[in-house]
């Protein structure tokens, strides 16, 4: 009986294919949009999640100054309070801390031969390699001897190598920063884009002591990067660092910290969270177009019922009950919605693949969303088909047969 009803419905829709298609269009676009939007959101989340993994979930960063967001600490020398001594103490004295590296950073022009390239120059300690999980593609990282002697050695990121040396081997080449010659001792492995969108391979690393003495002539450091013993001991490490620094900086109990400790995975999680919000928002907006598609179905079905009043009368005269008529029209609406759903899924998958290929946006189709979108379109079909179907079933056969 179901099969027969389905056949009747398909036959009725087939009589006016163009109209059926135009009616379905709302659902097609709605479902397609939902799937594409959520795929974009999921792709963003997945990218961020993999970047959290590459950052290391047990990494902390210590910055000088107050913890107010973006606020600049003014007053008694707040910006210069971190030293490499602090970093050493943190690493050696605190049980929850594994490694610590002081860091400095400044954008510099790097010259090689007759080429130059502006890049982020970072002064680092050997520990940074492990803390930030930097691979070495060629040569070696900075080691303690380099730091002790403030050696003029450098590691280049992949982008810098490409810009200044092309396909040539940069090891043992001389580059100049502020006209000071540095010997290239290593090349960093590739890391790609950070979660903030910057190119992590566009960098040069030198010993922090060299940066302090020869490039900047300062004795403090910009930040201290710390890795905790394990991810779940991060809060503990944070507390220990706070206590130690307050003591080293002689901060009285009634005064605020002159530093800020940031948990890198918090930042990444926040970014992931906002990507999630974006995905949900986009998905909701797209769902609205699904509802509009449903209204389109209801509209056309109402017209269809009116047009087929005579036909309904004939069916009733030969024995169709109210529920037979209602079922017939409900199935028509459902078939339109379901077909629209399938086409919409195809459209959504195709769009997100196109975005992936051409715009290099990361996208990720989750089968859950596909199933939900399909079921939702079916529900829309039933819901919006219900009223017209009910109207059809409630027709009086005598009046219907008289209808011109």
């Amino acid at each position: 009986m179901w099969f027969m009803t389905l056949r009747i419905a398909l036959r009725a829709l087939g009589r006016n294919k163009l109209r059926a298609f135009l009616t379905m269009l709302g659902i097609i676009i709605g479902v397609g949009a939902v799937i594409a939007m959520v795929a974009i959101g999921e792709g963003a989340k997945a990218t961020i999640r993999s970047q959290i993994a590459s950052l290391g979930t047990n990494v902390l960063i210590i910055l000088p100054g107050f913890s107010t967001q973006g606020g600049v600490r003014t007053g008694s020398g707040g910006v210069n309070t971190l030293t490499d001594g602090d970093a050493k103490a943190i690493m050696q004295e605190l049980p929850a801390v594994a490694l610590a590296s002081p860091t400095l950073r400044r954008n510099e022009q790097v010259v090689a031969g007759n080429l130059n390239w502006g890049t982020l120059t970072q002064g680092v300690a050997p520990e940074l390699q492990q803390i930030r999980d930097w691979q070495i593609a060629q040569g070696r990282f900075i080691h303690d001897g380099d730091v002790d002697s403030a050696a003029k050695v450098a590691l280049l990121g992949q982008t810098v190598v490409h810009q200044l040396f092309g396909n040539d081997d940069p090891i043992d080449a001389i580059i100049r920063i502020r006209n000071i010659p540095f010997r290239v001792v290593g090349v960093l492995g590739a890391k790609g884009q950070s979660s903030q969108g910057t190119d992590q391979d566009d960098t040069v690393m030198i010993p922090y002591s060299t940066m302090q003495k020869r490039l900047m002539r300062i004795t403090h450091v910009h930040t201290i990067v710390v890795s905790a013993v394990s991810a779940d001991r991060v809060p503990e490490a944070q507390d220990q660092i706070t206590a130690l620094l307050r003591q080293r900086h002689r901060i009285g109990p009634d005064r605020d910290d002159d530093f800020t400790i940031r948990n890198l995975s918090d930042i990444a999680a926040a970014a992931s969270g906002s990507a999630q919000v974006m995905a949900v928002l986009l998905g909701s907006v797209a769902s609205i177009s699904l509802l509009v598609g449903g209204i389109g179905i209801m509209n056309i079905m109402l017209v269809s019922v009116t047009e087929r009043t005579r036909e309904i009368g004939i069916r009733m005269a030969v024995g169709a009950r109210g529920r037979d008529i209602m079922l017939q029209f409900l199935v028509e609406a459902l078939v339109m919605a379901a077909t629209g759903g399938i086409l919409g899924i195809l459209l959504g998958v195709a769009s997100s693949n196109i975005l992936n290929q051409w715009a290099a946006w990361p996208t990720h189709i989750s089968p859950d969303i596909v199933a939900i979108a399909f079921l939702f379109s079916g529900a829309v079909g039933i819901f919006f088909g219900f009223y017209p179907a009910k109207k059809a079933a409630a027709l009086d056969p005598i009046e219907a047969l008289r209808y011109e």
Partner: protein
Amino acid sequence: MSEVIRVEDLYKTYRMGDFEVPALRGINLRIEGGEFVAVMGSSGSGKSTFMNIIGCLDHPTSGKYFLESKEVGSLRPDEWAQIRNRRIGFVFQGFNLLARTTALENVELPLMYNGFTGKKRHERAVEVLSLVGLEARRDHTPTQLSGGQQQRVAIARALVNGPSLVLADEPTGNLDSTTSHEIMELFQRLNSEQNITIVLVTHESDIAEFASRRVVFRDGVVMSDEKTR
């Protein structure tokens, strides 16, 4: 012969706003199985209202209607639908076939609502199409059939569930005189060979001649009721 239709004291009044329009004013009538009855009367005489009631399309305001000795005047719409499906066949002036649907599928329609599937449905439909002489045209749609052929398909549809009663509302109204006579001869044949009770509304005397009994309505009552052969 058992009775097919019996109405007792049938009244039907329509309410139009503040007005009450008495369409039937106390009809008492009995039709036996195998009869061929012509129902006549001018418009407003109540004959259409009468046909709607005995066709289980409308309920009487008061009075009783017995179809094959069962009281059906006050049944629910779903029960009526079943009666219309199995016990009554309709033939209309305008044929009322489904457009863009083949003759075979049109005839199959009542079978579908009776739960018949696939092969059985097909076979039964072909059987009644042969009865009206149109088996060869089973795959034609209404636009590919003449008026007379369409009406014959409609008659086949009316017979497909094996009803004991066929109600025809001006079945020859849209046909020329030759075709009209062909259709009426078909009705006669079905009546005499298959013993199907036929109640047929017409306003043409020569069409009414084909029947064996003539009932004339006027102003909501039966004015005359005579056997004509």
